[in-house]
Structures are given as structure tokens and as C-alpha cells.
């Protein structure tokens, strides 16, 4: 299996707090679940990989390229897209505009071309819009008709879907999902899990996702990494993890 993402001694501390403590791991084309108690550094790990934080030590390699010092937007262009734990769509923009934002890194028309001529710009825009609608329709056909509606009229589950779609639309090699089912009820959770499965089948995009719901983990994760206090304490398939004594102590407290 080719290595897609590889981290070596990845560390970050905020003042005295070491949030991620020399994490070394690698993943290939797979769905990786990231679990651990609150404050164990899961979200911080995603923030490091997506370039929102810059690490205080260690290295991140993506498809053989060192991305440790790349800026956030460069990492998106390199092919890592993400969602956030709290739904972070642009509320004052329409569904379609939010989707188009996801394609920002794939658009080439520079500002002066936009000013000088609309033709190339429109051609590109048209292609992009059809891509966006296609991806949206993949999640929920209704959203295509609601493309010109503002985000605040859209129900939570569909917002979650739009956020995932926005990340997927640029066809990334790695998708980072921060608690995709947070705040959803059981039925909605099942829907999202179903969506993710279909996405995986169709695009073969690698996924790292943070999750608290063990049911979700066991359904879609090929492999699980358990973090506690910023360190990896266990790694392996869900069955292996669930048997680990150390993981139980971390979750239940000693």
C-alpha cells in the first residue's frame, strides 16, 4: 500500500500545554478513524494536517511531499480538504456559492481576466457549477433545486452534507472530517454514514474522521487510531482496539 500521509514526531504546544505529542503515523488509501477522549488532541491533529496550526516540531508528508510548512490554502490545493466540528458554512451565501468556494483552488481565472473579459470566466463558471450540482445531487437531489437559497434556510443534516460536498467537490486525495455526525439524531447519523460509504465507494477518496459514536467507527473505519493526551496509545482495526486495555482505561478513567 502506497503511503498517502505520513507524520513523523508531529508536535505542537500552546504555551505549556502539549496538545499533540510526537505523533508518528502513516496511512494509505483507507478510511481512518481517529478517536480519543475530549482534549486528547484529535481536532488539533486535523488542524495541523490542514495547516491551520503550524507545528512546533516534527514533519508531515503528503504524497511524498513535505507539507509541514505549507500555508492552509496551499494544503487545500495540494489535495487535502476538510470539514469542521461545528458547521462552518458561509451563512450569508447561497448553497451554490458555498459549493463554488470549494472549487476556488481549481479555478484559474485571475482577477484581471475577470475584469477584461467575461467569456472565459463564464465558461469556467458554467463547468464549475455543473460539477457542484453533480456533487450536491449525489448527497441530496433536493439541494439542487435549493441552490440559490441561503444557508440559514437549510436543515442541519443538509448543511452537514453541503459541508462535506464542499470539501469533496475539488476532488481531494484526502478528506478530513471532524465529527461528521455531531448534533445529529440516530436516523440522520445513519444517513450521513450511508453517504460517506457511497462516497468512498465511488471516489475512493481517503478519509480521516474524528468520531465519538463507536457504531459509526465500526461501520466505516478500516483502521482506528486512538489518541490520549496528545499521544497515540493504540492503533489497529476496530476489533483490536476495542479489546485493548489501555484504550478502556483512557476512556473510562483509571
Amino acid at each position, binding site marked *: 500500500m502506497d503511503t498517502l500521509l505520513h507524520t513523523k514526531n508531529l508536535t505542537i504546544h500552546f504555551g505549556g500545554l502539549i496538545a499533540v505529542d510526537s505523533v508518528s503515523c502513516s496511512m494509505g488509501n483507507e478510511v481512518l478513524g481517529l478517536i480519543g477522549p475530549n482534549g486528547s488532541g484529535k481536532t488539533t491533529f486535523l488542524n495541523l494536517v490542514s495547516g491551520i496550526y503550524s507545528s512546533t516540531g516534527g514533519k508531515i508528508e503528503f504524497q511524498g511531499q513535505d507539507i509541514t510548512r505549507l500555508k*492552509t490554502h496551499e494544503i487545500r490545493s495540494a489535495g487535502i480538504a476538510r470539514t469542521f466540528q461545528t458547521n462552518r458554512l458561509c451563512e*450569508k451565501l447561497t448553497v451554490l456559492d458555498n459549493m*463554488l*468556494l470549494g472549487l476556488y483552488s481549481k479555478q484559474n481565472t485571475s482577477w484581471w481576466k475577470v475584469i477584461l473579459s467575461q467569456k472565459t470566466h463564464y465558461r469556467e463558471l458554467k463547468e464549475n457549477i455543473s460539477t457542484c450540482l453533480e456533487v450536491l445531487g449525489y448527497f441530496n437531489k433536493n439541494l439542487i433545486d435549493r441552490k440559490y437559497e441561503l444557508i440559514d434556510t437549510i436543515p442541519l443534516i443538509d448543511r452537514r452534507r453541503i459541508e462535506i460536498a*464542499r470539501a469533496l467537490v475539488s476532488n481531494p486525495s484526502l478528506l478530513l472530517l471532524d465529527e461528521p455526525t455531531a448534533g445529529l439524531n440516530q436516523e440522520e447519523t445513519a444517513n450521513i454514514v450511508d453517504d460517506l460509504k457511497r462516497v468512498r465507494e465511488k471516489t475512493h477518496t481517503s478519509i480521516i474522521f474524528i468520531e465519538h459514536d463507536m457504531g459509526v467507527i465500526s461501520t466505516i473505519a478500516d483502521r482506528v487510531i486512538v489518541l490520549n493526551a496528545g499521544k497515540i496509545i493504540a492503533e489497529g482495526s476496530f476489533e483490536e482496539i476495542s479489546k485493548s486495555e489501555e484504550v478502556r482505561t483512557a476512556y473510562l478513567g483509571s
Partner: protein
Amino acid sequence: MTENKIYTHKIEKLLPSLGVVVFFAALAVAITGSLWSTLIILIGMTGLLIYGEKHGQVDRAYIRVEERRSSTLTVLIICIVLLPFILKGNSYFLHIAVMAGIYAIVALGLNFQIGSMGQVNFAPAAMFGVGAYTSAMVTVRLGASPWIGLIAAMIVTAGMGIVFGFPALKTRGFYFSLVTIALQTIFILLVVNTEWLGGPNGIPGIPAFSLFGQSLKKSGMLLGTPIPYQMNYIYLTFTLLLLLIVISKRLYSSRIGLAWNAIEEDEIVASTQGINLTKVKLLSFSIGSVFAGIAGSLYAHYTSFIGVEDFDFNKSLIFICMVLLGGMDNPIGVTIGAIMLTVIDEKLRIFADYRMLMYSIILIVVLVVRSQGLLPKRNRKYPLGEEN
């Protein structure tokens, strides 16, 4: 997926053009009429816009204009050409129209920061001043042509825009606003204390633009009636204004405008979508400043005298007022806001003492009652159907 044609009667096809004509007629009456007629027209216009917005008429109007873009544009241009004659060739009335155009250009530039990116820049007047002073210095001190002055003003303001925009990379919100207030104040203090820039006395004797060897400051004769030179400036200013509105609209509907909106809402999300924050933010400041620079150059070569009080903090506030009143992130709205405020400002000249009081009250009322402005931002609709 074609948009449904909304109009049912033939006459409705003419509505956009009719709207333009009515707008210009109202504008002409507002400029030439007594104070009361001006107030009635402006209040009527405000009411009409708010009513239309509430009942979806404005949205329909937008669609109609899109459908009949070329004819609307033609009518608009004819109206502009006729504007000096509608204004009875009176040089004072023409002057008001020129100033409205110049201020609208500054407001359009400011809109890139306040409207699109949500960063309140309190230094548009300083940038307007940088443009005016650059153009004036190049022509008065170096003896270059005003056109060279205009280009120099554009180049210098583009650079200064990056300098003024630099703080926006590091801070936002109040901190950024404080930075721009400080820069605005520093600009005034520097000009007042620099002898070379005319100090507190300003710069007199700035040459006018000339075209084909003809100075635009020369009054002409048309069909035996004298036409004041302000007419030339109306054409020049409104041509540029029209051009800059088109540029603003194009930027708005492009990915750049979208990126600015995303930055306004959430910088981190914007950067995770692949938006280069540094580049896109500086672009907003740089383009906005070039707009102000063009306006400044026009102003300098129009009035032939510039003084530091034309570019002080109060002026900045007036520009902000124009953007807020007109409608943030809507170039047409901003232009209408700028024109309305300029006209009313000139009409209230006799009550000069109450001027700033009026602006501050307008600002508060707009913020409390209608913070989205008279003609609010429109959701982007894209030409999905076949191009016709």
C-alpha cells in the same frame, strides 16, 4: 434550465429603460429643484426602494435588466449624454453632478473593503487625497500632462493600498479600524506639515485635462448657446464611473468577490477552501485604492485647487455613509447612495453647520433601521441557461 420569462406584456420589456429615464429625471429635479422638492424626491426614492425590496419588485427588476441589458445600457448612456442639458446647462448644477460621480467612484472602491470583506476602512479620504496629491504634484511640480498624473495616481494608490492593506493581514475588526483611523490622521498631519506638499495652504493652479489639444476647462458653444466646461467633466467622470461599475460587478460575480465574502464570514474556512488570504485581501485594498486614486486625480484636475481639508476624517466618514446607505456589496446601490448623499449635501449647503450632524444621524438611523442599505446585496445568480 432556462429562467422563466417573467414579463407578460410587451410594455414590460420597456420597463428597465423607463426606470433609467425616470431615475435620471428624478435626479435632475432633485439637483435643480428647491430644497423641498429634493427632499421629497429623495424620500420618495428611498420609500420606493424599500417597498420594492419588500415585495420582490427589485428582484424582478434585476432579472428584467439582465434580459434587456443592451437596450437598458443604451438608454443609460443616452441619459448621461443628455444630463448636462436636462440640468439646464447651469454650471452649479453640473458641478453637483460631477462631484456625485467622483464621490461615487471613491465609494465603489471603498465597497471592496467594507461591503465585500467586512473590514471598515476609515481612510478612504486619505486614499482619495493620495490620488489627488500625486496627480497634482506630477502636473504642477513636474509639468507633466494631467493624463500622466492620472496614471501616476493610479500607480501610487495601488502601492499605498497595499501599505494600508498590510495591517488587514494581521488584524481585523476594531484593531484594523483603529489602524486605518491612525493612518488617516497621519496622512493629514504629514500633508499639513510638509511645505513641499503645500502644507495647510493647499496646491493651487492644477492644470485641467485636455483632449485632442482642447482643454476640458474651456466652455463651449452648442447651437448658439454657451455650455459650461463642467459638461466635459460630466462626460469624463460618468464614463469612468460606468466603467468602474462594470468592473465592480464583474469582480463581484467572480470567484474573487466570492472569496472576499468568505473572508468576511470566516477567514479560517476561507483559507481551507484554498483562498490565499494575503493575496485576496491586498487585492481588495489595492483595487479599492486605485478607484479612490482615479477619483482623486479627477477631483484635482477638475477643481484645480486641492487643500488638506478635502481629505479629512469627516470626508472618510461621509464615504462610509454612502456605502452603508446605498447597500453594502452592491455596486449599483453604492452608486445611488453616493449620488443621493452628494446631492443632499450640496442642497443643504446653507445649513453647513448641521452637515456632520446630519451625516451622523443618517449613519445611526441606517444602522439601526436598515443595516443592509437601501439596495442590499443580491445573492449571486449565475447564467446557467444557454447564452443568448
